[in-house]
């Protein structure tokens, strides 16, 4: 009886969503989940910091008492300073990019990550209250991270480029070959292009967003070609990409909320990492 009820509720939910009626249900759940996710993200970062400190402390334990105590304190201080410097460096890069962007942007902090393979998404602490719209491009100092697929009252879900359902219009900087960058279930990226257009693509070529459809500015680095999958007479060929962004290490992002057909390639380091 219960299983039947659950199945009916789930199928009803799925049907309503496919017809676009359940934004309210997501919002209601987000009211509960977002504050707890924010708190857990803070606890997580704190715990990682404490663990790192403890590991370093173990390395100097063999020294004599005074030096050990002194070394421990110095290490703890050094770790804090290093962490602060790294955070400062990250935030400065993000601020520089934000100031240089010809479009309006909104900075955000990652509060949760979904990394199971089925879905690769990040939760950012900017939502409907900040006037974030669906399909907003999300970038970092090194390049494109993904796009917003769900906006909630206090948070938004970012579909990361490596999500199996993600696809973005892009082109090769050197040859101008147009194509689509797709995520793969194994967490990698591939560039799909017409075989007749892609004869000149080489390993090391930089792929940037094409700006087609106006969903993201033109020229944001997506990745570099590290292998080419030549399928002979097939209509499409594929190039495996190394992403421009290390998605696992992102803590702060920019949401491109302004519209316009700008080419922003010059704002990224050497046209991409």
């Amino acid at each position: 009886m219960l299983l039947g009820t659950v199945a009916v509720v789930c199928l009803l939910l799925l049907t309503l969503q496919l017809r676009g009626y359940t934004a309210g249900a997501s919002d209601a759940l987000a009211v509960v989940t977002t504050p707890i996710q924010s708190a857990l993200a803070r606890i997580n970062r704190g715990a990682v910091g404490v663990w790192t400190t403890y590991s370093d402390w173990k390395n100097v334990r063999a020294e004599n008492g005074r030096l050990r105590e002194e070394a421990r304190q110095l290490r703890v201080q050094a770790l804090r300073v290093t962490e602060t410097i790294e955070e400062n460096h990250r935030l400065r890069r993000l601020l520089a990019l934000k100031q240089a962007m010809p479009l309006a942007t909104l900075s955000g902090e990652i509060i949760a990550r979904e990394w199971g393979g089925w879905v690769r998404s990040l939760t950012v602490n900017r939502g409907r209250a900040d006037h974030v719209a669906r399909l907003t491009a999300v970038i970092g100092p090194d390049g494109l991270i993904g796009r917003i697929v769900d906006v909630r009252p206090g948070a938004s879900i970012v579909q990361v480029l490596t999500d199996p359902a993600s696809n973005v219009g892009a082109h090769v900087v050197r040859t101008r070959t147009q194509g689509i960058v797709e995520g793969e279930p194994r967490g990698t990226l591939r560039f799909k292009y017409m075989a007749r257009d892609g004869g000149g693509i080489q390993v090391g070529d930089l792929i940037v967003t094409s700006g087609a459809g106006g969903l993201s500015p033109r020229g944001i680095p997506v990745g570099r070609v590290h292998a080419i999958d030549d399928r002979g007479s097939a209509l499409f060929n594929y190039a495996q990409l190394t992403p421009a962004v290390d998605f696992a290490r992102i803590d702060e992002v920019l949401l491109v909320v302004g519209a316009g057909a700008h080419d922003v390639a010059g704002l990224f380091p050497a046209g991409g990492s």
Partner: protein
Amino acid sequence: MRTFVAVAIFGGGFVHASLGPALRIADVAPDIPLIAVVLMALRRGPEFGCGAGFVAGLLQDAASGGLLGVQALTKALIGFLIGGLGGRLWVSQPLVQVPGLVLLTVAEGLARFALLKLVRFPAPFGELMTYVILPQALYNGFLGAALVLALTWAESMRERAS
């Protein structure tokens, strides 16, 4: 007991979204709520497992921004199934736990893939099985068995102390 259940369901979901990525090994993350649902279903039976699976799955759907109801349904099915079979299995043995959780994860993955295919999920089945479902199933198997052993040990310590 209710507090434990609430913590297990809600905590499992939030830990999965917030701390799960830290448990990644070679880009494979465990499905912590699935393990929690299985453990609760084994202790409390099919109806409880079904309800716990529904709540845990719904929270996961909400946290990941996916379609609400997909994991709610698959985890409810798994909770019901394992709750019903639990009494007939010798679940205290790691030799049963590891392959059991592996099979359950694969079953959940297949059910999820079938549901997602109805809404035109683009990923090919072979790649999904090779790079997502099977590695996660193995991880769940070993992590779940370790959790069962830890819980058994904690309970025996508590009984000894009382």
